[in-house]
């Protein structure tokens, strides 16, 4: 992955600027949401929490999805050696995303919800998103010259695209009365689809991160190595079958719990490999730490370790029964979306900006500070959520319980730390985002 053609760069710029703007919005909604935790009733009349939460979640998820799609479309020609099949389809897909995002924002603000946990909006917008995704699939497949002997990132992208389509459709099975009317069945299918859907965009992001790592290390064989494929298949196995840890406490058939528990434990192989390669990672770090994109990738590596360790613990039903329904789950989600997904995406954007625009030397200092601030803040943010989660878990299992509101009062110190760390995290990320946006907007194309 090196300098892009003018046409490719324009497309990338459009995707990335849209995505970065959504990240800025997502962070801003997140700050308002955290303020509502410590100041109950804040903005209750017009922007109560049931509006702020989906605004935050949808903005952040659109950031992740739009940026990862933009990344795949940009990396694809350099991987295949062929031009992108259709720039027009790629622009139409982006337009569909933008229209959907605006429509979804309008729906939330006017009090119109899909009312499902996690990524939710009125079903009409889901149709738009599916239509756009099919264009992406067509563009991706048509851009490949052959399916044979492809590196692991092509497998990962293909998996991500197909599974997103499947799980996204699956998440809307609730519109069919057969599913909706079975209260437990509906929750089961909802979390089956949500759990796997997260895995599908992770595939898009991790695929791009391997390309960037190949570029930084200079080792072009990584994508074809057996270990890369073993890790890919372990990830795919988990994407397909480990979603059950979301619903261990639901009254479903016991095998749902057993399958998920057993499959989740295969992630120990991934964490073992991280520990085994720790020394090698440190050596590579010493060599490449001056590269901004590498610093971001290294941050993501550390967060992979922390998030995965937490995820494995939470996948043990006997532990999950205590952590479930507490802020420990939120800590896991934040570690994954900010520490892993966002840092990898920012690393690839930084690398691309340095390759294609006049270099970022002028902004090195501020971006570097941003990386430090965001990592330290995220750690404090993460620990405060785990602290609040442990305290809530103790409350949930106490013989005699205080009222819910008293318990929330006792959690307030954790929420104050969580809010302060959240603001500081946003400032850190802004220090990375704004220079990148400025460079992208005023980019003097190198070619």
């Amino acid at each position: 992955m090196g300098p892009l053609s003018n046409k490719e760069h324009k497309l990338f710029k459009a995707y990335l600027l849209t995505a970065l703007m959504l990240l800025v919005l997502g962070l801003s909604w997140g700050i308002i949401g955290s303020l509502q935790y410590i100041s109950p009733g804040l903005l209750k009349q017009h922007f109560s929490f049931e509006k702020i939460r989906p605004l935050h979640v949808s903005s952040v998820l659109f950031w992740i999805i739009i940026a990862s799609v933009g990344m795949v479309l940009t990396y694809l020609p350099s991987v295949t050696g062929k031009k992108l099949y259709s720039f027009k389809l790629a622009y139409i897909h982006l337009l569909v995303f933008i229209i959907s995002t605006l429509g979804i924002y309008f729906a939330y603000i006017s009090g119109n919800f899909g009312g499902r946990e996690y990524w939710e909006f009125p079903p009409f917008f889901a149709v738009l998103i599916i239509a756009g995704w099919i264009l992406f699939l067509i563009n991706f497949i048509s851009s490949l010259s052959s399916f044979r002997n492809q590196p692991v990132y092509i497998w990962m992208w293909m998996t991500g695209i197909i599974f997103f389509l499947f799980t996204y459709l699956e998440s809307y099975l609730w519109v069919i009365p057969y599913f909706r009317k079975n209260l437990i069945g509906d929750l089961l299918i909802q979390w089956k689809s949500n759990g796997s859907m997260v895995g599908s965009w992770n595939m898009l992001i991790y695929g791009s991160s391997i390309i960037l790592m190949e570029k930084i290390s200079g080792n072009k064989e990584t994508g074809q190595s057996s270990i890369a494929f073993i890790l890919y298949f372990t990830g795919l196995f988990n994407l397909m079958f480990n979603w059950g840890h979301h619903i261990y406490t639901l009254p479903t058939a016991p095998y749902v719990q057993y399958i998920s528990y057993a499959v989740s434990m295969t992630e120990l192989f991934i964490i073992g490999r991280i520990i085994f390669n720790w020394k090698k990672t440190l050596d590579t770090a010493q060599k490449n730490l001056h590269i901004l994109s590498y610093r971001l990738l290294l941050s993501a590596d550390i967060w992979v370790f922390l998030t995965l360790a937490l995820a494995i613990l939470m996948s043990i039903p006997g532990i999950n029964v205590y952590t479930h329904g507490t802020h420990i789950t939120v800590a896991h989600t934040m570690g994954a979306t900010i520490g892993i997904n966002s840092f990898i995406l920012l690393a690839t954007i930084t690398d691309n900006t340095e390759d294609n625009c006049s270099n970022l030397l002028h902004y090195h200092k501020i971006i570097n500070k941003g990386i430090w601030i965001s990592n330290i803040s995220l750690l404090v943010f993460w620990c405060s959520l785990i602290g609040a989660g442990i305290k809530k878990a103790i409350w949930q299992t106490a013989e005699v319980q205080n009222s819910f509101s008293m318990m929330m009062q006792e959690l307030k110190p954790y929420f104050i730390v969580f809010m302060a760390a959240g603001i500081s995290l946003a400032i850190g990320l802004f220090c990375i985002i704004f220079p990148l946006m400025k460079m992208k907007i005023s980019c003097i194309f190198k070619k």
Partner: protein
Amino acid sequence: MEFNEKNKILTAGILLLTFTVYSFHLYSSLPRQNLAKADDSNGKLVWQDKNCISCHQIYGLGGYLGPDLTNVYSTKGPEYIKAFLKTGTVVMPNFKLSDKEIQELLGYLKNIDQTGKADPRTFTISYNGTIKQ
């Protein structure tokens, strides 16, 4: 293990087939109705329409600003729930629900209550780390 092209396709094929069979097995064998109470009311749609899940939880799934409501019907009773729905709280807005909507929502909470217990204290943990109620 050498991952040649044939092994890759075989592994992917087996995984995909297993996933498809598992998915369709789950669709066709949703929890039995005596376990997973069938909901014939519109209460669930009212619940979704007001986005209750962004603050409340059902079986620990949802937002954490408000309490878990899985078993609120049997522990607090319909009158208690009605009072909250009619006035709101310091945190929760008054959604100005009609009497019909309140009745439908109560129907949903009653049905979900009958599906099981969400209280973690009702679970036992086996030596191998699994749980059961």
